[in-house]
């Protein structure tokens, strides 16, 4: 097992005993990607005026303080989404890329797909690469299913003759024969996704890069997609798969790369690496309902200049801090934040997801507090009551907005454990077998009504 301690050395390919050395098809050598975050102007589409105004402002500053030798625009901050990533992947390998939000997974995929360039480093890919960062890229709503198959094929790098050859297979797979000549804007979202995936699945690249696309579509179709991807890999093609969904990572990949804050933390057998990934959350869940944030916790690509979240804690009904609650017990979340520049309005929020899945269960947006807040530390509480969460482990993501702009985003930061309430469901083992889902609702079952009676005799 090759484990990259610091992510700086080239990780040699891990050999299983008794197997031939596969040909290396992907070599990633010390790749880094830097983004510049402009704190002054969070708006990603700056206008010329901003550019001029920014320059004028800094010129003015320079004029006033001629001895200031700092660069003209000091509000720009470098952010390394990836730093010195190295690994190799052999032909026919199925490799998962996992990590928390903001770990650099998407950036890595974008670089491998040549959408954006690395700032440093070098990658060598052998063979045709197809990447599926989104289902249906290039689909045009006004065009028919038939037209979109050809268009999407071309976008993904298929030649016209290739698409024509695969056309029937694609249509079969997507189950949309009847609607081939209907504009896709009239498709249901399920049909749309099926068609889009079908085109991509019939590409014949040597290297297939897939990002989380399986999170869409119904379960039957998801299974079909997984099957297709397994098939692709069994034909000796290489599959790179990014996902938050641990069950599909486990079933689909043999090796995994775990990224954390732009570094490779572990490379190796899927089960071991997934275990290591999930352990991060276990430490969260034992954090007894309290967290303080440093820059390392923040998603630095989603920062604003006016404020940041500083801490959070969970309190029970008695005002005691705790990470564990009973089913139905109200949960009080307290969020602490620091305002750096005076703001006119703030809004906070918390998104809750279960530990094992990527699906967000719900978000609690605060009202828009129309209050002038001078720089300083503040806190606010939100009471989750009634608490509809069922027994299980949950992860919280916290957000701060001010003056209509995102200021801070702290992903996967606080763990919340909900324990079974013994007073509910007396026949427990039976109850547990068939009661599914993370949420509990208020529901009222009615009385059983007798609609009609069957004759006692000769009823059969």
């Amino acid at each position: 097992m090759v484990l990259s301690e610091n992510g700086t050395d080239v990780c040699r390919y891990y050999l299983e005993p008794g197997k031939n050395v596969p040909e290396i098809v992907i070599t990633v050598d010390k790749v880094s990607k830097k983004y510049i975050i402009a704190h002054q102007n969070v708006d990603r589409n700056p206008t010329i005026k901003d550019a001029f105004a920014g320059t004028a402002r800094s010129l003015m500053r320079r004029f006033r303080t001629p001895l200031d030798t700092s660069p003209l625009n000091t509000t720009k901050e470098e952010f390394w989404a990836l730093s010195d990533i190295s690994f190799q992947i052999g032909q026919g390998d199925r490799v998962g890329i996992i990590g928390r939000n903001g770990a650099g997974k998407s950036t890595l995929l974008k670089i491998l797909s040549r959408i954006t360039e690395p700032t440093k480093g070098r990658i060598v890919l052998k063979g045709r690469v197809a990447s599926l960062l989104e289902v249906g890229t290039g689909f045009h709503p006004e065009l028919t299913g038939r037209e979109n198959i050809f268009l999407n094929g071309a976008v993904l790098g298929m030649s016209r003759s290739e698409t024509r050859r695969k056309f029937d297979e694609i249509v079969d797979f997507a189950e949309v024969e009847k609607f081939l000549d209907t504009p896709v804007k009239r498709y249901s979202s399920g049909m749309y996704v099926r068609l889009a995936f079908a085109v991509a699945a019939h590409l014949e690249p040597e290297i297939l890069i897939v990002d989380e696309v399986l999170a869409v579509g119904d379960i039957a179709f998801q299974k079909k997609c997984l099957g297709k991807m397994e098939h692709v890999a069994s034909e000796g093609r290489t599959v790179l798969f990014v996902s938050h969904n641990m069950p599909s990572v486990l079933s689909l990949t043999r090796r995994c790369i775990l990224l954390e804050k732009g570094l490779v933390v572990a490379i190796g057998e899927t089960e071991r690496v997934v275990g290591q990934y999930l352990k991060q959350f276990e430490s969260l869940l034992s954090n007894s309902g309290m967290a303080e944030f440093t820059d390392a916790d923040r998603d630095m690509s989603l920062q604003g200049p006016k404020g940041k979240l500083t801490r959070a804690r969970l309190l029970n009904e008695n005002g005691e801090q705790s990470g564990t609650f009973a089913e139905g017990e109200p949960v009080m979340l307290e969020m602490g934040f620091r305002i750096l520049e005076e703001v006119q309005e703030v809004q906070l929020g918390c998104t809750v997801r279960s530990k094992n899945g990527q699906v967000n269960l719900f978000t609690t947006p605060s009202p828009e507090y129309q209050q002038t807040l001078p720089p300083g530390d503040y806190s606010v509480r939100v009471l989750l009551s009634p608490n509809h969460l069922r027994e299980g482990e949950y992860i919280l993501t916290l957000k701060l907005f001010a003056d209509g702009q995102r200021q801070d985003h702290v992903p996967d930061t606080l763990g919340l454990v909900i324990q079974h309430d013994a007073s509910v469901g007396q026949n427990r083992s039976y109850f547990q077998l068939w009661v599914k889902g993370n949420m509990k609702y208020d529901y009222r079952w009615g009385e059983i009504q007798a609609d009609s009676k069957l004759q006692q005799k000769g009823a059969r």
Partner: protein
Amino acid sequence: METREIVIEAGRSESQYWKDLWRFRELLFFLTWRDILVRYKQTVIGVAWALIRPLLTMVVFTVLFGRLAKLPSEGVPYPVLVFAALLPWQLFAGSLTECSHSLIKNASMISKTYFPRMLAPLSAMVTGFADFLLSLVMLGILLAVYRVVPDWRILTVPLFAAISVGAALGLGLWFAALNVKYRDFMQIVPFVVQIGLYVSPVGFTSSIVPEEWRTLYYLNPVVGAIDGFRWALLGTSHSLYVPGIISSVAIVILLCASGVWYFRRTERTFADII
């Protein structure tokens, strides 16, 4: 299938880029095909719009400049004079507009897939060209109605069309790339096109421009294209102002070269900021 090796590193080599552009030629075809297909979907009269717009402009300009302002037409029926100029103008204006918006329009593709980004403006150019071909047919009909018979000079039309296309491409590459970062160009381009229609000799002939302003006037490359079209199609009375054409061609070359340079220079960050 041949195994090819792709090397990804900062500042990819220039030669690989142009090879890729060739390799992705089918995508160019499909993007163009998509734009043309989508253009007139869910319209009642469809492609006829491509003809109605220049025809109505022609009528308005004929009344405005020919009848009301009584500008000289040099012996050619005024509608024909206007339409011959509208062709290169619309080729330029249409291509420029499409080209400038091409990257924004394909933003989702740019942030989710790889292809040489120059394909987007190029395919937009082809779409503009398709409209031009349709208008050419319309011009043929007009010439027949007014019994204007062009001579051998009609063979030079492609050259002047190329000036229009080149000017649109050069400027369009600049605007498309700038648009990614500064959406101001969404406002600037329609404005340039609107003003350009009156500044260029579409409703009148360039001969009414005083001699001393000529050199300056021909800095607008479309003037060369329009003059050329009239000279090539309407014959006798129009002589070609050769220095003007040369300056137009020079400007077009300058625009295209600088446009390609700027586009290539900014291209690598498109996906990050679009």
